Every structure is written in structure tokens, then in C-alpha cells.
């Protein structure tokens, strides 16, 4: 029992600190990627290539004046960024970061909690995440904040449906809601072709589901082209207009954590998680470590996609966003689900 507590504590602590570290450096990466795409240099003052820029930014955030508007609901105003940060950090608990390490004859699973409803847990955390934005936006007592909060909530509710429906196809194919089983189920051979062991990724059988999920992930993390809740040309700063200092920092930070976690979820659901071709040839512990490296490689690729899209596509109009969500993605995901179900019945895969 004590071993288990120590083992899980170390795992939780390392996942938490890695999440925070990555989120910190994503602010730097975002600016560098933006600079690259716009043919600029980007931050280059703090340290070599500007790699200490996040530290400088964090220092600035902490030392700025923390202002709470007089007409705001004070406690809710403080709670908003806290909830956003909390839900963002909670989601990493069910992601299988690797297979398992064998430390002195003890199998240590590299997943904090293998709950049998892992994927639903992620959906739940995503749907609760909207409260941070809603409460913060409402408590600010500012029309622009309120508009941003309302946009965020309706956008999230709309895209959750298509997201859930696209996940159902994956769940049907795997026969489990546990992310561990979903990741482990992608370790076989792709279409039975030899030499492709470890490449049986869901994206090859569920390309439509993957695209739907990716679009929904953009909408759920409030990233461009769906960043209408903080659309600066219409709403000043959206839900965080009234926020300053580290409370603003928390909202921005939560967005980067969400980006990291959704990249991890996309990699696990559709890109084989920790699996890569040739993983089965390695010895046990090396397999786990190489698996972690592979998963992080995939995660960084998807983070790059998030940034790439942000600096490529212009923002949607609000009615276009709703049209895409309700009239295109939901019917498409239902169709995808029916085709998957029909195919599985036809091939007797159930």
C-alpha cells in the first residue's frame, strides 16, 4: 500500500511538473512559431535565442498590480482562473504516458489512474472547464466579458456533442472506455501488413473521426480559428478583459495546458499513443522510455499543428462557427458512427 502511494505520488508530481514546464515553454514556442511563419525573428533578448523569455514573462505577470474591479463579484472573480487552471491540470490523470517500467521487480504503470471510464472522464473535465471562463466572465461585471463567457459556453456545448460522437466510433472498435486499452489496442499490425507492428493506429481506420475530433479540439481549447470568446477585434479581451496580473496569467496558462493535454489525447486516441513501429523489439524498460519519447514527439507535433493553424486561418464568424458545429460536424460524426457500426456488424467484429 505504501509502495503504491509513493509510486503514484512521484508519478503525479512528475506529470504535474512536466505539464507546467511544457505550458510555460509553449508561450515561448508560440511566439517563435508565429515569428517563423511571419518571417520574423521573435523573442531573442532574454538568454540565447530568447529561451529565458517565459521566466521574464512570468516575473512580469507576478509583479504587476493585481486589480479587482469594485463592481465585480469578488470571490467568483478570484475563483474563475482557479477553476480554469484546476480542470486543465486534472485531465492528465488518465492519459497513459507509456507502458510500464520494471523497477527492481516491481511493475510501475506509467498512468496515474487507469479508470475504466477514462475517456468519459476527459469529456467530463472538458465540460467542467467551461465554468472557469463563465464564472470569471460573469463576475467581472463587464459587458464584453459576459459576451465572451456566453460565447465560450455555447461554443463548448455545441462542439462537445460532435466530439463525443466521434469518440464513440473509437470506443466501439476498441470495446473499452479505458484509455489504457485504447492505447494498447493500437499496437498490432496495420491491416495485417508484415513489418508494420506498432502502426495499427486508429487514424488509418477512422480518418473522418480524427478530423472531426481535431476540429472539436480546436473549438474546445478556444484556439484560433475558433477563439471567439476572446476575439479582440470585437470584445477587447473577451472573458479576461478585466483580469490583470497572475489571474490573467492563469487563464492564458490554462489555455496552453489544455492545448498540451488535448494534443496528448489526440495522440492517444488516434495516433497510437506510445506505440511506434518497432517498439516490440526493444527490451521491457527501454520500451517504456522509448514509448514516452514517441508519445511526446506526437504531442509536440500536434502542438505545432495548433500553432500552425492559428497563424494560417482567419477567425470564423460566430454564425459560421455554429453552422459548422451543428449542421456539418454532428451529422458527419453520426454518419461516421453508423458506417463504423455497419462495417463492424458486417465483418462480425463485435
Amino acid at each position, binding site marked *: 500500500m505504501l509502495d503504491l502511494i509513493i509510486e503514484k505520488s512521484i508519478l503525479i508530481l512528475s506529470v504535474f511538473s512536466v505539464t507546467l514546464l511544457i505550458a510555460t515553454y509553449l508561450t515561448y514556442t508560440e511566439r517563435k512559431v508565429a515569428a517563423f511563419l511571419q518571417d520574423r525573428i521573435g523573442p531573442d533578448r532574454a538568454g540565447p535565442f530568447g529561451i529565458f523569455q517565459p521566466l521574464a514573462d512570468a516575473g512580469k505577470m507576478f509583479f504587476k498590480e493585481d486589480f479587482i474591479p469594485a463592481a465585480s463579484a469578488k470571490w467568483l472573480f478570484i475563483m474563475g482562473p482557479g477553476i480554469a487552471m484546476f480542470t486543465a491540470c486534472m485531465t492528465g490523470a488518465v492519459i497513459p504516458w507509456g507502458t510500464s517500467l520494471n523497477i527492481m521487480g516491481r511493475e510501475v504503470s506509467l498512468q496515474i489512474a487507469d*479508470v*475504466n471510464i477514462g475517456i*468519459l472522464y476527459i*469529456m467530463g473535465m472538458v465540460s467542467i472547464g467551461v*465554468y472557469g471562463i*463563465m464564472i470569471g466572465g460573469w463576475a467581472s461585471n463587464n459587458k464584453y466579458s459576459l459576451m465572451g463567457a456566453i460565447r465560450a459556453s455555447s461554443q463548448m456545448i455545441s462542439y462537445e456533442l460532435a466530439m463525443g460522437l466521434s469518440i464513440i466510433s473509437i470506443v466501439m472498435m476498441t470495446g473499452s472506455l479505458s484509455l489504457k486499452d485504447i492505447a494498447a489496442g493500437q499496437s498490432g499490425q496495420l491491416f495485417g501488413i508484415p513489418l508494420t507492428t506498432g502502426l495499427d493506429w486508429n487514424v488509418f481506420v477512422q480518418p473522418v473521426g480524427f478530423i472531426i475530433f481535431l476540429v472539436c479540439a480546436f473549438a474546445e481549447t478556444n484556439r484560433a480559428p475558433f477563439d471567439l470568446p476572446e476575439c479582440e477585434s470585437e470584445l477587447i479581451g473577451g472573458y479576461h478583459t478585466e483580469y490583470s496580473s497572475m489571474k490573467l496569467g492563469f487563464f492564458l496558462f490554462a489555455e496552453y495546458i489544455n492545448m498540451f493535454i488535448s494534443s496528448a489525447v489526440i495522440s492517444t486516441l488516434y495516433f497510437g499513443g506510445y506505440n511506434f513501429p518497432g517498439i516490440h523489439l526493444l527490451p521491457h524498460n527501454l520500451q517504456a522510455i522509448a514509448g514516452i519519447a514517441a508519445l511526446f514527439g506526437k504531442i509536440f507535433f500536434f502542438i505545432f499543428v495548433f500553432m500552425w493553424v492559428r497563424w494560417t486561418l482567419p477567425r470564423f464568424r460566430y454564425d459560421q462557427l455554429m453552422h459548422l458545429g451543428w449542421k456539418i460536424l454532428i451529422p458527419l460524426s453520426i454518419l461516421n458512427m453508423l458506417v463504423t457500426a455497419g462495417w463492424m456488424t458486417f465483418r462480425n467484429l463485435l
Partner: protein
Amino acid sequence: MTELFFYIFSFISILTALLVVFSKNPIHSVLYLIVTFFTIAGQYILMNAQFLAIVHLIVYAGAVMVLFLFVLMLLNLNENAEPKKDLILKIVSIISSGLLFLTLTAALKDAETSQPSIATNENLGLVKNLGNVLFKEYVVPFELSSILFLSSMVGAVMLGKKEQTTNN
């Protein structure tokens, strides 16, 4: 351990349920109700029904309450906007709710303490067993309730639809 959690969750859920009724600001009421839902989900987890717990959170805390909050924020109700109630209205509401309370206590007074239901299979709440039970034993009620949901959804859409103006 489980018992301790049961008491903690029960205490918080009763407290927040009371706060739902007593807080003057409708937004605060909704937020307290969300906390109540969380504690109820905690009770489900204690009963080894994780699927029910998480679906409860997704549906009630994640969707229904977001819509409630959404509407309340749009209407922007607050303490000042609450209509002033007449004295006669207050007296009537006190009498009627007192009668309801009396009826409930009278009904509960004679009720026996329920036997804690002993589940035939303590893992019944796990998603695999639940799915088997729902789709094998109770498939007809399950499908009927889905039809009920569908028809209520169609009804809501029909009500929400704008009146078509005839142009001919």
C-alpha cells in the same frame, strides 16, 4: 474510510442544497447546485458506479447547469431585479409550504427504515455490467425512454422554431 467520505459528501450536499434555496442571487444558487451535483457524483463513486457518476457530471454539471447559468447570465438577474412580493403573497406561500411540510412529515412518520438494498452483484455499476444489463435485460424500457427523449427533443425544437411567414 468509505463511511467517512459518505458523511463528508452528505454534509456538503445537504449544506449546498440548502444554500441553493437560501441564496438571493440566482447565479449563486446555480453554482451551489453544481456543487451538490458533484457531491452526489461522489456518492455514486463510493457505490462503485463510476459510469453513472461521470455521466451524471457530464450531463448535469457539464451541460444542463451550463445552460441554466447561460440563461441566467443573459437575463442578468440579480438581487435588485427580484420583484417585490406582497405581504399576502408571502403569507399564502408560508401556509401552503407549511401544509406540504406537514403532509411530508406525516407520511414519513409511519414509514419504516428502508433495508439497505443488497446489490446482487457489487460490480453492477461498472460500465461493462451496466451495458449488459441495459441492452439485454432491460432493452425495451431503455429503447422506450430513448424514444421519449427524442420526442421531447422534437417538441423543444418545434417550440423554439420561429413562426413561418407565408409569402404567397
